[in-house]
Protein backbone atom coordinates (compact mmCIF):
# COMPACT_ATOMS: atom_id res chain seq x y z
CA UNK A 1 0.00 0.00 0.00
CA UNK A 2 2.82 2.34 0.96
CA UNK A 3 4.62 1.69 -2.33
CA UNK A 4 1.38 2.12 -4.29
CA UNK A 5 0.66 5.50 -2.65
CA UNK A 6 4.27 6.64 -2.96
CA UNK A 7 4.30 6.01 -6.70
CA UNK A 8 0.70 6.96 -7.41
CA UNK A 9 0.37 8.56 -10.83
CA UNK A 10 -0.95 12.11 -10.37
CA UNK A 11 -3.48 11.49 -13.16
CA UNK A 12 -5.44 9.29 -10.75
CA UNK A 13 -5.70 12.33 -8.47
CA UNK A 14 -7.00 14.38 -11.42
CA UNK A 15 -9.56 11.69 -12.17
CA UNK A 16 -10.72 11.58 -8.54
CA UNK A 17 -11.08 15.37 -8.51
CA UNK A 18 -13.05 15.24 -11.76
CA UNK A 19 -15.45 12.72 -10.24
CA UNK A 20 -15.67 14.67 -6.97
CA UNK A 21 -16.86 17.72 -8.91
CA UNK A 22 -18.89 15.94 -11.60
CA UNK A 23 -20.98 13.64 -9.41
CA UNK A 24 -22.54 16.40 -7.23
CA UNK A 25 -23.31 18.38 -10.41
CA UNK A 26 -25.06 15.41 -11.99
CA UNK A 27 -27.01 14.68 -8.80
CA UNK A 28 -27.67 18.41 -8.13
CA UNK A 29 -26.34 18.20 -4.58
CA UNK A 30 -27.03 21.39 -2.64
CA UNK A 31 -26.37 22.35 0.96
CA UNK A 32 -27.78 25.16 3.12
CA UNK A 33 -25.78 28.39 3.36
CA UNK A 34 -25.47 30.52 6.47
CA UNK A 35 -24.42 34.11 5.65
CA UNK A 36 -21.33 35.39 7.45
CA UNK A 37 -20.48 38.95 8.48
CA UNK A 38 -18.72 40.04 5.30
CA UNK A 39 -21.55 38.93 2.98
CA UNK A 40 -24.05 40.56 5.33
CA UNK A 41 -21.99 43.77 5.22
CA UNK A 42 -22.22 43.88 1.41
CA UNK A 43 -25.95 43.18 1.59
CA UNK A 44 -26.48 45.90 4.23
CA UNK A 45 -24.48 48.49 2.29
CA UNK A 46 -26.79 48.08 -0.71
CA UNK A 47 -29.89 47.56 1.39
CA UNK A 48 -29.55 50.83 3.29
CA UNK A 49 -29.46 52.94 0.11
CA UNK A 50 -32.72 54.75 -0.64
CA UNK A 51 -34.41 54.27 -4.04
CA UNK A 52 -32.82 56.41 -6.75
CA UNK A 53 -29.32 56.33 -5.22
CA UNK A 54 -26.43 56.18 -7.66
CA UNK A 55 -24.38 52.99 -7.74
CA UNK A 56 -21.26 52.52 -9.83
CA UNK A 57 -20.87 48.88 -10.86
CA UNK A 58 -17.32 48.15 -12.00
CA UNK A 59 -17.19 44.69 -13.58
CA UNK A 60 -13.49 43.92 -13.87
CA UNK A 61 -13.53 40.29 -14.89
CA UNK A 62 -13.56 38.10 -17.98
CA UNK A 63 -14.97 34.75 -19.16
CA UNK A 64 -12.09 32.87 -17.49
CA UNK A 65 -13.37 33.91 -14.04
CA UNK A 66 -17.06 34.08 -14.94
CA UNK A 67 -17.76 30.81 -13.17
CA UNK A 68 -16.62 32.30 -9.88
CA UNK A 69 -17.76 35.90 -10.27
CA UNK A 70 -20.79 35.64 -12.57
CA UNK A 71 -23.20 34.55 -9.80
CA UNK A 72 -22.26 37.47 -7.53
CA UNK A 73 -22.48 39.95 -10.43
CA UNK A 74 -25.96 38.60 -11.21
CA UNK A 75 -27.13 38.93 -7.63
CA UNK A 76 -25.65 42.39 -7.12
CA UNK A 77 -27.51 43.67 -10.18
CA UNK A 78 -30.71 41.99 -9.07
CA UNK A 79 -30.37 43.52 -5.62
CA UNK A 80 -29.86 46.99 -7.16
CA UNK A 81 -32.92 46.46 -9.38
CA UNK A 82 -35.07 45.40 -6.41
CA UNK A 83 -33.91 48.51 -4.54
CA UNK A 84 -34.60 50.70 -7.63
CA UNK A 85 -31.07 52.11 -7.62
CA UNK A 86 -29.54 53.89 -10.60
CA UNK A 87 -26.83 51.67 -12.04
CA UNK A 88 -23.74 52.92 -13.87
CA UNK A 89 -21.82 50.01 -15.39
CA UNK A 90 -18.13 50.37 -16.25
CA UNK A 91 -15.26 47.95 -16.94
CA UNK A 92 -11.48 48.21 -16.71
CA UNK A 93 -11.04 44.84 -18.42
CA UNK A 94 -11.42 44.66 -22.23
CA UNK A 95 -14.07 41.91 -22.12
CA UNK A 96 -15.87 43.52 -19.19
CA UNK A 97 -18.56 45.07 -21.46
CA UNK A 98 -19.57 41.57 -22.61
CA UNK A 99 -19.91 40.51 -18.99
CA UNK A 100 -22.02 43.62 -18.35
CA UNK A 101 -24.23 42.90 -21.39
CA UNK A 102 -24.67 39.33 -20.22
CA UNK A 103 -25.89 40.41 -16.77
CA UNK A 104 -28.12 43.14 -18.24
CA UNK A 105 -29.83 40.55 -20.46
CA UNK A 106 -30.00 37.96 -17.72
CA UNK A 107 -31.43 40.20 -14.99
CA UNK A 108 -32.65 43.61 -16.16
CA UNK A 109 -34.15 42.84 -19.55
CA UNK A 110 -35.62 39.52 -18.43
CA UNK A 111 -36.98 40.31 -14.95
CA UNK A 112 -37.10 44.12 -14.75
CA UNK A 113 -38.24 45.22 -18.23
CA UNK A 114 -39.78 48.38 -16.76
CA UNK A 115 -36.29 49.82 -16.16
CA UNK A 116 -35.29 52.27 -18.90
CA UNK A 117 -31.82 52.46 -20.42
CA UNK A 118 -30.32 55.88 -19.77
CA UNK A 119 -32.69 56.63 -16.93
CA UNK A 120 -32.31 53.64 -14.63
CA UNK A 121 -29.11 52.03 -15.91
CA UNK A 122 -26.33 52.81 -18.36
CA UNK A 123 -23.45 50.79 -19.76
CA UNK A 124 -20.39 53.03 -20.10
CA UNK A 125 -18.23 50.20 -21.38
CA UNK A 126 -14.50 49.56 -21.20
CA UNK A 127 -11.84 52.20 -20.67
CA UNK A 128 -8.14 51.38 -21.05
CA UNK A 129 -5.62 52.71 -18.57
CA UNK A 130 -6.08 50.41 -15.56
CA UNK A 131 -5.67 52.37 -12.31
CA UNK A 132 -5.11 55.52 -14.38
CA UNK A 133 -8.83 55.48 -15.19
CA UNK A 134 -9.76 55.37 -11.49
CA UNK A 135 -7.27 58.12 -10.70
CA UNK A 136 -8.91 60.38 -13.31
CA UNK A 137 -12.60 59.69 -12.67
CA UNK A 138 -12.38 60.26 -8.92
CA UNK A 139 -12.00 63.94 -9.78
CA UNK A 140 -13.13 64.37 -13.41
CA UNK A 141 -15.66 61.94 -14.87
CA UNK A 142 -16.08 63.52 -18.30
CA UNK A 143 -12.40 63.60 -19.09
CA UNK A 144 -12.66 59.90 -19.90
CA UNK A 145 -16.35 59.12 -20.24
CA UNK A 146 -17.65 61.16 -23.18
CA UNK A 147 -19.89 58.45 -24.66
CA UNK A 148 -21.57 55.28 -23.43
CA UNK A 149 -20.84 51.80 -24.79
CA UNK A 150 -23.26 52.37 -27.69
CA UNK A 151 -21.51 55.61 -28.71
CA UNK A 152 -24.23 57.95 -27.41
CA UNK A 153 -22.94 61.27 -26.14
CA UNK A 154 -22.99 61.23 -22.36
CA UNK A 155 -24.74 64.64 -22.23
CA UNK A 156 -27.73 63.06 -23.98
CA UNK A 157 -28.10 60.38 -21.29
CA UNK A 158 -30.44 61.74 -18.56
CA UNK A 159 -28.94 59.82 -15.64
CA UNK A 160 -25.41 60.99 -16.49
CA UNK A 161 -26.22 64.69 -16.23
CA UNK A 162 -24.82 66.46 -13.20
CA UNK A 163 -22.15 63.87 -12.45
CA UNK A 164 -18.79 65.56 -11.94
CA UNK A 165 -16.87 62.55 -10.69
CA UNK A 166 -17.42 59.26 -8.89
CA UNK A 167 -17.62 61.06 -5.58
CA UNK A 168 -21.20 61.69 -6.74
CA UNK A 169 -21.87 57.95 -6.44
CA UNK A 170 -23.52 56.68 -3.26
CA UNK A 171 -21.75 53.34 -3.52
CA UNK A 172 -19.13 51.68 -5.71
CA UNK A 173 -19.51 47.92 -6.23
CA UNK A 174 -16.53 46.21 -7.79
CA UNK A 175 -16.52 42.63 -9.05
CA UNK A 176 -12.89 41.83 -9.59
CA UNK A 177 -10.80 39.01 -11.02
CA UNK A 178 -7.36 40.58 -10.57
CA UNK A 179 -5.45 43.57 -11.86
CA UNK A 180 -6.90 46.16 -12.20
CA UNK A 181 -9.54 45.44 -9.62
CA UNK A 182 -10.55 45.86 -6.01
CA UNK A 183 -7.03 46.60 -4.79
CA UNK A 184 -6.74 49.51 -7.22
CA UNK A 185 -10.23 50.78 -6.37
CA UNK A 186 -9.25 50.80 -2.70
CA UNK A 187 -5.88 52.42 -3.40
CA UNK A 188 -7.01 55.15 -5.77
CA UNK A 189 -10.63 55.79 -4.78
CA UNK A 190 -11.61 54.64 -1.28
CA UNK A 191 -8.39 55.53 0.56
CA UNK A 192 -7.87 59.11 -0.72
CA UNK A 193 -11.60 59.93 -0.30
CA UNK A 194 -12.71 57.93 2.76
CA UNK A 195 -15.69 60.17 3.51
CA UNK A 196 -16.96 60.44 -0.05
CA UNK A 197 -16.33 57.11 -1.78
CA UNK A 198 -17.59 53.87 -0.25
CA UNK A 199 -16.68 50.56 -1.86
CA UNK A 200 -17.82 46.99 -1.45
CA UNK A 201 -16.44 44.20 -3.59
CA UNK A 202 -16.69 40.64 -4.78
CA UNK A 203 -13.50 38.88 -5.79
CA UNK A 204 -11.93 35.58 -6.79
CA UNK A 205 -10.56 33.23 -4.17
CA UNK A 206 -6.99 33.99 -5.20
CA UNK A 207 -7.47 37.69 -4.43
CA UNK A 208 -9.48 37.44 -1.22
CA UNK A 209 -6.58 36.98 1.28
CA UNK A 210 -4.82 40.00 -0.22
CA UNK A 211 -7.88 42.18 0.39
CA UNK A 212 -8.58 41.19 4.00
CA UNK A 213 -6.19 43.83 5.43
CA UNK A 214 -8.44 46.54 3.96
CA UNK A 215 -11.46 45.33 5.94
CA UNK A 216 -13.40 47.11 7.39
CA UNK A 217 -12.00 50.66 7.27
CA UNK A 218 -11.08 50.82 3.57
CA UNK A 219 -13.39 48.05 2.36
CA UNK A 220 -16.56 47.59 4.43
CA UNK A 221 -17.76 44.41 2.71
CA UNK A 222 -16.24 41.63 0.62
CA UNK A 223 -17.67 38.58 -1.13
CA UNK A 224 -14.81 36.09 -1.25
CA UNK A 225 -15.10 33.64 -4.14
CA UNK A 226 -18.06 31.36 -4.77
CA UNK A 227 -18.67 30.88 -1.03
CA UNK A 228 -19.17 34.62 -0.52
CA UNK A 229 -21.43 34.67 -3.58
CA UNK A 230 -23.55 31.81 -2.20
CA UNK A 231 -23.96 33.58 1.15
CA UNK A 232 -24.95 36.84 -0.51
CA UNK A 233 -27.30 34.95 -2.83
CA UNK A 234 -28.99 33.47 0.22
CA UNK A 235 -29.50 36.92 1.78
CA UNK A 236 -31.03 38.40 -1.39
CA UNK A 237 -33.19 35.37 -2.09
CA UNK A 238 -34.37 35.28 1.52
CA UNK A 239 -35.47 38.90 1.41
CA UNK A 240 -36.87 39.19 -2.12
CA UNK A 241 -38.17 35.67 -2.85
CA UNK A 242 -38.80 33.49 0.18
CA UNK A 243 -40.35 36.21 2.35
CA UNK A 244 -42.75 36.89 -0.51
CA UNK A 245 -43.51 33.19 -0.82
CA UNK A 246 -41.73 32.78 -4.18
CA UNK A 247 -39.28 30.11 -5.26
CA UNK A 248 -36.05 31.70 -6.57
CA UNK A 249 -35.27 31.19 -10.26
CA UNK A 250 -32.38 28.82 -11.09
CA UNK A 251 -30.22 31.72 -12.31
CA UNK A 252 -30.40 33.23 -8.79
CA UNK A 253 -29.14 29.99 -7.22
CA UNK A 254 -26.00 29.45 -9.30
CA UNK A 255 -23.49 30.03 -6.50
CA UNK A 256 -25.39 27.79 -4.09
CA UNK A 257 -25.51 25.09 -6.77
CA UNK A 258 -21.74 25.31 -7.20
CA UNK A 259 -21.15 24.90 -3.48
CA UNK A 260 -22.22 21.21 -3.71
CA UNK A 261 -19.14 20.22 -5.76
CA UNK A 262 -17.05 22.45 -3.48
CA UNK A 263 -17.89 20.39 -0.42
CA UNK A 264 -17.09 17.03 -1.99
CA UNK A 265 -13.93 18.32 -3.70
CA UNK A 266 -12.69 19.89 -0.48
CA UNK A 267 -13.25 16.66 1.44
CA UNK A 268 -11.22 14.86 -1.22
CA UNK A 269 -8.53 17.54 -1.01
CA UNK A 270 -8.30 17.22 2.78
CA UNK A 271 -8.10 13.45 2.45
CA UNK A 272 -5.32 13.73 -0.11
CA UNK A 273 -3.35 16.18 2.05
CA UNK A 274 -3.62 13.86 5.06
CA UNK A 275 -2.65 10.88 2.92
CA UNK A 276 0.30 12.76 1.43
CA UNK A 277 1.53 13.63 4.92
CA UNK A 278 1.16 10.03 6.11
CA UNK A 279 3.28 8.85 3.17
CA UNK A 280 5.83 11.60 3.85
CA UNK A 281 6.21 10.66 7.53
CA UNK A 282 6.30 6.94 6.72
CA UNK A 283 9.07 7.58 4.22
CA UNK A 284 11.00 9.66 6.74
CA UNK A 285 10.69 7.01 9.44
CA UNK A 286 12.06 4.35 7.05
CA UNK A 287 15.18 6.33 6.23
CA UNK A 288 18.29 4.85 7.78
Amino acid at each position, binding site marked *: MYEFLKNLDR*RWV*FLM*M*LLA*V*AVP*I*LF*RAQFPERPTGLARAVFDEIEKLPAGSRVLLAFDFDP*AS*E*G*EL*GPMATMVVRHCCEKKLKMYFIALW*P*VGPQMIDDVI*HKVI*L*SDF*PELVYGEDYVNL*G*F*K*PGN*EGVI*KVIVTDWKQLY*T*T*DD*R*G*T*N*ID*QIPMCRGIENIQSMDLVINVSAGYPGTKEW*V*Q*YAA*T*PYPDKIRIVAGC*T*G*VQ*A*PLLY*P*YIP*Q*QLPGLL*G*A*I*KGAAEYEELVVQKYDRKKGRQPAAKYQEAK*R*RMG*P*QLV*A*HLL*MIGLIVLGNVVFFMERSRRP
Partner: protein
Amino acid sequence: MKRETLIWTVVLVAAGLFLAYRSATNGVGHVYVDQTDIGWRTASPENVVAGTAAFSLSRTVGTWVAALFTLCILSFLYRDNPFYKFAEAVVVGVSAAYWMVVAFWTTLIPNLLGKLWPAWIQSWAMPGLSSVREPLWYLYLVPLGLGVMLLWRLAPKGAWISRWPLAFTIGAFAGLRMVSFIQADFLSQIRNSILPLIVFAENGAFDFWTSLRHVLIVGSILASLVYFFFSIEHKGVIGKVSKVGIWVLMITFGAAFGYTVMGRIALLAIRLEFLFHDWLGLT
Protein backbone atom coordinates in the same frame (compact mmCIF):
# COMPACT_ATOMS: atom_id res chain seq x y z
CA MET B 1 -0.95 -1.16 -31.99
CA LYS B 2 0.30 -0.09 -28.56
CA ARG B 3 -1.94 -0.92 -25.60
CA GLU B 4 -2.38 2.71 -24.65
CA THR B 5 -3.29 3.72 -28.21
CA LEU B 6 -5.83 0.90 -28.34
CA ILE B 7 -7.44 2.03 -25.06
CA TRP B 8 -7.71 5.62 -26.21
CA THR B 9 -9.09 4.59 -29.59
CA VAL B 10 -11.80 2.55 -27.85
CA VAL B 11 -12.58 5.46 -25.45
CA LEU B 12 -12.83 8.00 -28.27
CA VAL B 13 -14.93 5.73 -30.49
CA ALA B 14 -17.27 5.00 -27.56
CA ALA B 15 -17.56 8.73 -26.82
CA GLY B 16 -18.28 9.44 -30.50
CA LEU B 17 -20.99 6.75 -30.62
CA PHE B 18 -22.52 8.12 -27.40
CA LEU B 19 -22.59 11.62 -28.87
CA ALA B 20 -24.10 10.37 -32.13
CA TYR B 21 -26.78 8.47 -30.19
CA ARG B 22 -27.58 11.49 -27.96
CA SER B 23 -27.61 13.77 -30.99
CA ALA B 24 -30.07 11.52 -32.83
CA THR B 25 -32.38 10.91 -29.86
CA ASN B 26 -32.11 14.02 -27.65
CA GLY B 27 -30.69 16.67 -29.95
CA VAL B 28 -27.49 16.93 -27.92
CA GLY B 29 -25.85 20.33 -28.16
CA HIS B 30 -28.77 21.78 -30.11
CA VAL B 31 -29.67 25.31 -29.08
CA TYR B 32 -33.18 26.68 -29.52
CA VAL B 33 -34.19 30.32 -29.26
CA ASP B 34 -37.33 32.37 -28.67
CA GLN B 35 -37.99 35.73 -30.30
CA THR B 36 -38.80 38.30 -27.63
CA ASP B 37 -39.15 42.09 -27.41
CA ILE B 38 -35.45 42.27 -26.53
CA GLY B 39 -34.27 40.05 -29.41
CA TRP B 40 -33.49 36.34 -29.70
CA ARG B 41 -33.10 34.65 -26.31
CA THR B 42 -32.26 31.05 -25.42
CA ALA B 43 -35.57 29.23 -25.31
CA SER B 44 -37.07 27.78 -22.15
CA PRO B 45 -37.27 23.95 -21.99
CA GLU B 46 -41.10 24.16 -22.05
CA ASN B 47 -41.05 26.02 -25.38
CA VAL B 48 -38.58 23.52 -26.83
CA VAL B 49 -40.87 20.62 -25.86
CA ALA B 50 -43.93 22.48 -27.14
CA GLY B 51 -42.17 23.04 -30.48
CA THR B 52 -42.61 26.82 -30.46
CA ALA B 53 -38.86 27.58 -30.19
CA ALA B 54 -36.68 27.98 -33.29
CA PHE B 55 -33.48 26.01 -33.90
CA SER B 56 -30.38 28.26 -33.91
CA LEU B 57 -27.56 26.95 -36.11
CA SER B 58 -25.05 29.63 -35.09
CA ARG B 59 -25.57 29.06 -31.36
CA THR B 60 -25.45 25.29 -31.84
CA VAL B 61 -22.12 25.56 -33.66
CA GLY B 62 -20.89 27.89 -30.89
CA THR B 63 -21.84 25.38 -28.20
CA TRP B 64 -20.05 22.54 -30.02
CA VAL B 65 -16.91 24.60 -30.60
CA ALA B 66 -16.86 25.66 -26.93
CA ALA B 67 -17.38 22.07 -25.76
CA LEU B 68 -14.67 20.62 -28.00
CA PHE B 69 -12.20 23.34 -27.02
CA THR B 70 -12.94 22.70 -23.34
CA LEU B 71 -12.14 19.02 -23.85
CA CYS B 72 -8.99 19.88 -25.81
CA ILE B 73 -7.71 22.06 -22.95
CA LEU B 74 -8.67 19.53 -20.26
CA SER B 75 -6.82 16.80 -22.20
CA PHE B 76 -3.56 18.41 -21.02
CA LEU B 77 -4.21 16.85 -17.60
CA TYR B 78 -3.47 13.48 -19.17
CA ARG B 79 -0.51 14.56 -21.24
CA ASP B 80 0.64 17.30 -23.61
CA ASN B 81 -0.93 16.56 -27.00
CA PRO B 82 -1.71 18.15 -30.40
CA PHE B 83 -5.35 18.89 -29.46
CA TYR B 84 -4.21 20.93 -26.46
CA LYS B 85 -1.56 22.70 -28.53
CA PHE B 86 -4.16 23.59 -31.17
CA ALA B 87 -6.63 24.97 -28.61
CA GLU B 88 -3.85 26.90 -26.86
CA ALA B 89 -2.66 28.45 -30.13
CA VAL B 90 -6.20 29.50 -31.04
CA VAL B 91 -6.73 31.12 -27.62
CA VAL B 92 -3.44 33.02 -27.88
CA GLY B 93 -4.14 34.16 -31.45
CA VAL B 94 -7.71 35.24 -30.80
CA SER B 95 -6.73 37.06 -27.59
CA ALA B 96 -3.92 38.95 -29.32
CA ALA B 97 -6.19 40.00 -32.18
CA TYR B 98 -8.96 40.99 -29.77
CA TRP B 99 -6.53 43.12 -27.75
CA MET B 100 -5.32 44.88 -30.92
CA VAL B 101 -8.83 45.73 -32.06
CA VAL B 102 -9.91 46.85 -28.58
CA ALA B 103 -6.80 49.00 -28.16
CA PHE B 104 -7.44 50.64 -31.54
CA TRP B 105 -11.10 51.45 -30.86
CA THR B 106 -10.85 52.33 -27.17
CA THR B 107 -7.46 54.02 -26.96
CA LEU B 108 -6.13 55.31 -30.28
CA ILE B 109 -9.43 56.50 -31.71
CA PRO B 110 -11.17 58.19 -28.74
CA ASN B 111 -8.20 59.11 -26.54
CA LEU B 112 -5.75 60.35 -29.15
CA LEU B 113 -7.20 60.95 -32.62
CA GLY B 114 -10.57 61.96 -31.14
CA LYS B 115 -8.85 64.63 -29.06
CA LEU B 116 -6.65 65.94 -31.89
CA TRP B 117 -9.19 65.84 -34.74
CA PRO B 118 -12.63 65.37 -33.10
CA ALA B 119 -14.72 66.48 -36.11
CA TRP B 120 -12.98 64.00 -38.42
CA ILE B 121 -13.35 61.14 -35.93
CA GLN B 122 -17.00 62.05 -35.31
CA SER B 123 -17.71 61.93 -39.04
CA TRP B 124 -16.70 58.30 -39.56
CA ALA B 125 -16.01 56.53 -36.26
CA MET B 126 -17.77 57.94 -33.21
CA PRO B 127 -20.98 59.85 -33.94
CA GLY B 128 -21.53 60.47 -30.21
CA LEU B 129 -18.24 62.33 -29.87
CA SER B 130 -18.31 66.13 -29.60
CA SER B 131 -16.83 67.77 -32.72
CA VAL B 132 -15.42 70.70 -30.71
CA ARG B 133 -11.76 70.58 -29.72
CA GLU B 134 -10.86 70.90 -26.04
CA PRO B 135 -9.05 74.16 -25.12
CA LEU B 136 -5.72 72.39 -24.50
CA TRP B 137 -6.06 69.90 -27.36
CA TYR B 138 -2.48 70.45 -28.54
CA LEU B 139 -1.20 68.72 -25.37
CA TYR B 140 -2.21 65.44 -27.02
CA LEU B 141 0.57 65.98 -29.55
CA VAL B 142 2.92 64.90 -26.73
CA PRO B 143 1.54 61.32 -26.45
CA LEU B 144 1.39 61.19 -30.26
CA GLY B 145 5.10 62.06 -30.38
CA LEU B 146 5.93 59.58 -27.61
CA GLY B 147 3.97 56.88 -29.46
CA VAL B 148 5.92 57.49 -32.67
CA MET B 149 9.18 57.38 -30.69
CA LEU B 150 8.11 54.08 -29.13
CA LEU B 151 7.61 52.57 -32.58
CA TRP B 152 11.06 53.73 -33.62
CA ARG B 153 12.54 50.51 -32.27
CA LEU B 154 11.19 48.80 -35.40
CA ALA B 155 13.36 51.06 -37.58
CA PRO B 156 16.77 49.78 -38.68
CA LYS B 157 18.54 52.72 -37.00
CA GLY B 158 17.92 54.76 -33.85
CA ALA B 159 16.26 52.04 -31.75
CA TRP B 160 17.53 53.88 -28.66
CA ILE B 161 14.91 56.59 -29.26
CA SER B 162 12.22 54.20 -28.02
CA ARG B 163 13.84 54.18 -24.57
CA TRP B 164 12.74 57.75 -23.86
CA PRO B 165 8.98 57.13 -23.94
CA LEU B 166 9.57 53.89 -22.04
CA ALA B 167 11.47 55.82 -19.35
CA PHE B 168 8.63 58.35 -19.19
CA THR B 169 6.01 55.59 -18.78
CA ILE B 170 8.00 53.76 -16.10
CA GLY B 171 8.72 56.98 -14.20
CA ALA B 172 5.11 58.17 -14.32
CA PHE B 173 3.70 54.83 -13.14
CA ALA B 174 6.34 54.38 -10.44
CA GLY B 175 5.40 57.77 -9.00
CA LEU B 176 1.68 57.11 -9.28
CA ARG B 177 1.90 53.73 -7.59
CA MET B 178 4.32 54.82 -4.89
CA VAL B 179 1.98 57.52 -3.63
CA SER B 180 -1.03 55.18 -3.59
CA PHE B 181 0.95 52.42 -1.91
CA ILE B 182 2.22 54.69 0.86
CA GLN B 183 -1.27 56.05 1.44
CA ALA B 184 -3.39 52.88 1.12
CA ASP B 185 -1.06 50.06 2.11
CA PHE B 186 1.48 51.63 4.46
CA LEU B 187 0.01 54.53 6.43
CA SER B 188 -3.59 53.26 6.38
CA GLN B 189 -2.50 49.78 7.45
CA ILE B 190 -0.56 51.19 10.39
CA ARG B 191 -3.59 53.25 11.39
CA ASN B 192 -5.89 50.23 11.00
CA SER B 193 -3.61 48.16 13.23
CA ILE B 194 -3.77 50.54 16.18
CA LEU B 195 -6.65 48.87 17.99
CA PRO B 196 -7.88 48.92 21.59
CA LEU B 197 -7.01 45.61 23.23
CA ILE B 198 -9.81 45.86 25.80
CA VAL B 199 -13.13 46.71 24.22
CA PHE B 200 -16.34 47.65 26.01
CA ALA B 201 -19.74 47.43 24.36
CA GLU B 202 -22.10 50.41 24.17
CA ASN B 203 -23.86 49.33 27.38
CA GLY B 204 -20.52 49.33 29.24
CA ALA B 205 -20.12 45.53 29.38
CA PHE B 206 -16.78 43.93 28.50
CA ASP B 207 -16.82 42.73 24.85
CA PHE B 208 -14.76 39.55 25.10
CA TRP B 209 -14.83 38.43 21.46
CA THR B 210 -13.94 41.82 19.95
CA SER B 211 -11.15 42.19 22.53
CA LEU B 212 -9.82 38.74 21.68
CA ARG B 213 -9.93 39.56 17.95
CA HIS B 214 -7.99 42.78 18.49
CA VAL B 215 -5.41 41.03 20.66
CA LEU B 216 -4.96 38.37 17.95
CA ILE B 217 -4.61 40.98 15.18
CA VAL B 218 -2.07 43.12 17.06
CA GLY B 219 -0.19 40.09 18.39
CA SER B 220 0.02 38.47 14.93
CA ILE B 221 1.28 41.66 13.31
CA LEU B 222 3.99 42.14 15.95
CA ALA B 223 5.07 38.49 15.81
CA SER B 224 5.30 38.59 11.98
CA LEU B 225 7.29 41.82 12.10
CA VAL B 226 9.70 40.29 14.63
CA TYR B 227 10.25 37.33 12.27
CA PHE B 228 11.41 39.74 9.55
CA PHE B 229 13.59 41.75 11.96
CA PHE B 230 17.10 40.46 11.40
CA SER B 231 19.14 43.07 13.31
CA ILE B 232 18.81 41.00 16.49
CA GLU B 233 19.64 37.30 16.63
CA HIS B 234 16.51 35.16 16.93
CA LYS B 235 17.27 33.69 20.37
CA GLY B 236 15.41 33.62 23.68
CA VAL B 237 12.21 35.69 23.75
CA ILE B 238 12.84 37.12 20.26
CA GLY B 239 13.31 33.59 18.91
CA LYS B 240 10.05 32.40 20.48
CA VAL B 241 8.10 35.41 19.20
CA SER B 242 9.54 34.96 15.71
CA LYS B 243 8.41 31.30 15.82
CA VAL B 244 4.89 32.55 16.52
CA GLY B 245 5.40 34.88 13.52
CA ILE B 246 6.24 31.85 11.34
CA TRP B 247 3.03 30.16 12.49
CA VAL B 248 1.03 33.28 11.63
CA LEU B 249 2.58 33.35 8.17
CA MET B 250 1.92 29.63 7.64
CA ILE B 251 -1.73 30.03 8.65
CA THR B 252 -2.00 32.96 6.20
CA PHE B 253 -0.48 30.91 3.39
CA GLY B 254 -2.84 28.05 4.24
CA ALA B 255 -5.85 30.35 4.06
CA ALA B 256 -4.63 31.70 0.71
CA PHE B 257 -4.14 28.15 -0.58
CA GLY B 258 -7.63 27.17 0.60
CA TYR B 259 -9.17 30.13 -1.18
CA THR B 260 -7.22 29.33 -4.35
CA VAL B 261 -8.43 25.73 -4.29
CA MET B 262 -12.01 26.97 -3.88
CA GLY B 263 -11.58 29.27 -6.88
CA ARG B 264 -10.14 26.56 -9.10
CA ILE B 265 -12.86 24.06 -8.17
CA ALA B 266 -15.49 26.68 -9.00
CA LEU B 267 -13.92 27.12 -12.44
CA LEU B 268 -13.91 23.36 -13.03
CA ALA B 269 -17.54 23.17 -11.86
CA ILE B 270 -18.71 25.79 -14.37
CA ARG B 271 -16.98 23.98 -17.26
CA LEU B 272 -18.51 20.66 -16.23
CA GLU B 273 -21.92 22.34 -15.81
CA PHE B 274 -21.55 23.65 -19.34
CA LEU B 275 -20.58 20.22 -20.72
CA PHE B 276 -23.30 18.31 -18.85
CA HIS B 277 -26.10 20.84 -19.14
CA ASP B 278 -25.62 22.99 -22.25
CA TRP B 279 -23.86 20.43 -24.42
CA LEU B 280 -24.91 16.92 -23.39
CA GLY B 281 -28.24 17.84 -21.79
CA LEU B 282 -27.64 15.42 -18.90
CA THR B 283 -28.89 17.65 -16.07
